[in-house]
């Protein structure tokens, strides 16, 4: 949609099969668990390196539908995450509506309380 509107796009993914199906104009794949496309928490150098390498694909991809794979490895000694990521019982249960409203009220209250400072 955005690409068709005249702005080049790049999609950063860690789900290769889904991205192949969706077939975006440009994509970069890193084989990390879902929710970590741009790196591990509190590792700013890794995050910057992944994002920098990914953005390089804006200048290297010449054919629509290309997916560039980056060579980053989540854990060279342990690939067990691949067996369990996004399988049954992997996700915590969704909160029921009442709990969700409580969580939301508490989250927002922190900022509303500090807004006047």
């Amino acid at each position: 949609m955005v690409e068709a509107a005249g702005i080049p796009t790049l999609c950063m993914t860690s789900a290769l099969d889904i991205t192949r199906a969706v077939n975006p104009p440009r994509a970069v794949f890193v084989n990390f668990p879902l929710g970590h496309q741009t790196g591990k928490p509190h590792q700013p150098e890794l995050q910057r390196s992944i994002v920098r390498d990914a953005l390089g694909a804006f200048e290297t991809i010449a054919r629509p539908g290309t997916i560039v794979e980056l060579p980053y490895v989540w854990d060279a000694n342990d690939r067990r995450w691949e067996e369990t990521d996004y399988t049954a019982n992997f996700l915590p249960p969704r909160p029921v509506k009442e709990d969700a409203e409580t969580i939301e009220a508490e989250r927002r209250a922190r900022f509303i309380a500090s807004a006047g400072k």
Partner: protein
Amino acid sequence: MPVDYIPRTRELYNAYSPYRWVENHDTPPWTPLKKPLAESKLALIGSGGILYRDQPRFHREDASYRRIPRDAVQADLGVWHFGYRTTDAEADHNCVFPLAPLRELAAAGVIGEFADPAYSFMGGVYSARKVREELAPQIADELKRAHVDAFFLVPA
């Protein structure tokens, strides 16, 4: 080996009507980058459910989006999404919403400018039509008005 997420998603959602993937078999649309990345204004969008301060949360089937100030820091941000494990994103949003890396790459001259604001939505929208007909055109309009040269998408 890359994980096959399509069968795993089918499994997780097997209590519901069959999950139908967006499949695009045609050649994707294409717009070349008009100037080098180092001179380009780049905007970020992430679907990880990131929220800024007291912005309202996302709801089921919610195709709305939030504008996140480019200079937001960890203490400003929350995560509202039940479709992926958010523990690490809550600890450090840069895992799925790389504000800090993009600020640093702009300062280092790798990109010309990191557009303000960045955009956030919650990727658990099961209607591809809503995303295509409601969310995407609004974002495209904002990007054009802001003279953005390149758009970086991080689907969480």
